[in-house]
């Protein structure tokens, strides 16, 4: 008693919120809970004497049922959808029972008339039971993949039959045979325990298939219904076994408790947080029907051991139970087969997809990895950490990125990283890492998928290199244009300036001659540059034709050397010519231009007075001419660009080299038009040797030509016309 008072006062304390402010939404529930607890205490501990207690006992059931009905109606009004329907059905159920109780109480307590069985109480019960079943089933308990509808229906059947079996074995069937009265009375008598058993089966089944969080109001409701139903069954059992006595009022108290719990469930404040996601059905939930079967087995065993006869009803229940078992087993086998199929499909997909899949723990150590692609990190790295898949310099960057996953700021992240192949070489992979969480929200592992993007990367890099090449060419081209215009302006300065001086100033005849000479040389310089530009353009576009004829290159060399010396070369030009040189078929003017260009080049890049050596040789059916200088030499990195259109070696700013820089490009074009080849050997600081070879014409190889027959023409350097 003292304990109870303490309990109640504690509840009141909580309800009034002394220790701390109770949330407003909990106040109704808390007040109700305290009131119900006080009511129960009064009922159970018989405060105020026996008579009053018996009266309260009878009224109590009615009051509890009506309170439950009102609470459920209240819950229905603030719910929606299937919950609303469920609460209305439960309200109707409680109301039905309460109405029967009120009528009976009116007669028994109010008027003192003993009510005979079956009465309005039983009518109320008969209506209340199906309504309660429907109410519980109406709650939205989402079937999940692990609890498909067929499966749960079969489980429900097994549960119901198991409970009936146990109930029948306990002698519930005897209720009808032992209770006196009309067949209707007997029927109603048997319905009571059956209804109780069914209710318990439905409750267990609801728990079995609950895909949502089975908390708070739902738990209260199911416990309330169970407490409510149990007395019927127990009552029937005790009646059947003739042991009903002082426990009668306790059964009434059970019903009161049941309805009060249902009322409390209905008053549970609506959740402020959204309904949790559907969760997989737990193992203990799946086991519930099998616990029923276990009960059947134990009951059957006990019956067999105690030598109790098997009632026909038990045998009748055994058959359907076995059938349901078979169906359930078939169902689970089918589900298992589907599961195996899906797993096999998934395995196939993962095994054959062009991606690698790995799982990492939160500390970045590898759980397992499945790498389809041999080009990505091999199985040898399976035991390590993320670091084993990456080149060392990449690790800090990736770990930093993954940190975002670890601190939970993002759920998924992707990146492009160089990876290590099995053979240790580098490749590129695109990876996506996703956090997989446990039910409590903590990180379970990271799922990482990576695809080999080495090919894409190479393609991209090639494209970038091409672009860089194009940009360089474009830059060279504009430098070329600016250089050419610089040369043109320089030449034009003399032409414009001297002609103006001659026009405007009184000058002597000597000065006229001098200035006219300057104008002339500037004009020729301009002409030469324009000719070079046009030549190269024509050669490159294939619009230049060669005037072919037999050419003695020894002669051409001698002419070019002579011309260079006449033009005032500041170098010592020596020749070493093969007297047995065969003639070649070619354009004498153009070949002269080649040698002249090479000589001019040798002069430009050599110090004054240095020796330049020109040699001719026969080599592998070709005539090879070489021009050796002792100039500054050409750096190796420049060698392959030397014959390009826009190149000019300006490593030494002291040496101002004039011209368009097209000389070697033109030279190469001419040589190649003769099906020949030009190349250079050079050592920086020592000098360069330019070689070119022109194939000997097969028809003329046998008979060397007379010197007079060789076409001799002036070289381009001397020309003042634009060659056709």
């Amino acid at each position: 008693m003292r304990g109870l008072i303490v309990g109640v006062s504690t509840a009141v304390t909580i309800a009034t919120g002394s220790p701390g402010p109770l949330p407003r939404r909990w106040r109704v529930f808390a007040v109700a809970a305290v009131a119900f607890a006080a009511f129960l205490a009064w009922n159970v501990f018989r405060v105020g004497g026996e008579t009053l207690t018996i009266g309260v006992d009878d009224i109590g059931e009615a009051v509890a049922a009506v309170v439950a009905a009102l609470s459920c109606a209240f819950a229905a009004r603030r719910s929606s959808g299937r919950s609303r329907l469920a609460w209305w059905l439960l309200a109707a159920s409680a109301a039905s029972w309460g109405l029967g109780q009120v009528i009976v109480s009116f007669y028994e307590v109010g008027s003192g008339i003993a009510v005979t069985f079956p009465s309005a109480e039983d009518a109320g019960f008969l209506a209340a039971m199906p309504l309660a079943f429907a109410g519980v089933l109406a709650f939205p308990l989402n079937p999940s993949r692990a609890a498909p509808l067929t499966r749960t229906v079969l489980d429900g059947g097994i549960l119901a039959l198991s409970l009936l079996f146990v109930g029948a074995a306990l002698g519930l069937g005897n209720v009808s045979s032992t209770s006196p009265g009309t067949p209707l009375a007997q029927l109603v008598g048997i319905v009571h325990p059956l209804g109780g058993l069914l209710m318990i089966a439905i409750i267990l089944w609801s728990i079995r298939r609950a895909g949502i969080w089975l908390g708070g109001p739902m738990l209260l409701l199911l416990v309330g219904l169970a407490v409510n139903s149990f007395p019927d069954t127990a009552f029937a059992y005790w009646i059947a076994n003739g042991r009903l006595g002082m426990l009668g009022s306790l059964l009434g108290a059970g019903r009161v408790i049941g309805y009060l719990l249902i009322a409390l469930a209905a008053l549970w404040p609506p959740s402020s947080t959204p309904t949790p996601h559907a969760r997989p059905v737990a193992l203990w939930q799946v086991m519930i029907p099998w616990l029923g079967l276990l009960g059947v087995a134990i009951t059957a065993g006990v019956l067999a051991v105690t030598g109790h006869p098997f009632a026909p009803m038990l045998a009748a229940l055994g058959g359907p139970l076995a059938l349901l078992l078979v169906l359930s087993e078939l169902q689970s086998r089918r589900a298992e087969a589907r599961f195996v199929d899906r797993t096999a499909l998934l395995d196939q997909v993962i095994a054959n997809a062009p991606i690698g899949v790995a799982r990492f723990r939160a500390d970045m150590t590898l759980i397992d990895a499945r790498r389809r692609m041999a080009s990505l990190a091999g199985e040898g790295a399976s035991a390590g950490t993320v670091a084993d898949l990456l080149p060392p310099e990449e690790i800090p960057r990736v770990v930093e990125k993954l940190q975002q996953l670890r601190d939970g700021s993002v759920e998924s992240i992707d990146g492009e990283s160089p990876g290590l192949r099995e053979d240790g070489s580098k490749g590129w992979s695109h990876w996506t890492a996703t956090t997989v969480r446990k039910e409590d929200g903590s990180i379970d592992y990271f799922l990482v998928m990576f695809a080999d993007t080495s090919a894409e990367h190479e393609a991209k890099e090639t494209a970038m290199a091409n672009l860089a090449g194009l940009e360089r060419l474009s830059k060279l081209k504009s430098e070329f244009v600016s250089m050419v215009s610089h040369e043109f302006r320089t030449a034009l300065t003399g032409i414009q300036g001297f002609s103006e001086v001659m026009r405007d100033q009184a000058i002597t005849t000597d000065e006229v001659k001098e200035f006219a000479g300057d104008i002339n040389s500037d004009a020729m310089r301009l002409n030469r540059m324009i000719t070079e530009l046009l030549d190269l353009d024509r050669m490159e576009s294939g619009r230049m034709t060669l005037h072919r004829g037999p050419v003695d290159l020894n002669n051409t060399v001698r002419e070019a050397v002579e011309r260079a010396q006449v033009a005032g070369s500041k170098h010592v030009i020596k020749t070493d010519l093969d007297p047995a040189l065969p003639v070649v078929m070619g354009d004498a003017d153009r070949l002269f231009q080649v040698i002249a260009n090479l000589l001019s080049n040798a002069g430009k890049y050599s110090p004054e007075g240095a020796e330049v050596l020109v040699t001719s040789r026969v080599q592998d059916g070709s005539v090879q001419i070489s021009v050796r200088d002792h100039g500054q030499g050409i750096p190796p990195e420049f060698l392959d660009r030397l014959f390009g259109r826009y190149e000019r070696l300006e490593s030494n700013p002291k040496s101002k080299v004039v011209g368009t820089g097209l000389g070697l490009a033109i030279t190469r074009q001419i040589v190649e038009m003769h099906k020949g080849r030009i190349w250079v050997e050079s050592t920086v600081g020592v000098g360069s040797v330019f070689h070119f070879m022109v194939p000997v014409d097969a028809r003329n190889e046998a008979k060397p030509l007379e010197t007079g027959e060789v076409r001799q023409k002036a070289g381009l350097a001397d020309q003042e016309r634009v060659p056709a």
Partner: protein
Amino acid sequence: MRNNSKASARIRRTVVIADDEPSLRILVRATIGTDDYNVVEACDGDEAWSLIQEHRPPVVILDVGMPGRTGLDILRAIKSDPNLIATRVILLTASAQEADIRAGLVAGANSYLTKPFSPRDLLSRLDEALEL
């Protein structure tokens, strides 16, 4: 030229012309090499610098694109030499590139001419430079 004829009667002013093109040096001499001016020629930057230090001329005509020290290098050297504070500089450039011209003016050139230029323009620039 006419503006300075009175002064030049007494003093022949020295002009240093630095350009690697011989014909341009001849042109400048033909243009201004009268009794008024004493034209001193340099064929590269180094020669120009030693002549400038020797003569301390009132005007220097510098080609920007010379081998060795460029016109801009010489210009900067003149501007940082307190002995040459009175020396005016005219730049010659064939590249006609804004960047070169801007760099020249920033470095303190008094004026510039782009090649090809008219000798008359050279004379007027010379006059302007000497009037400053």
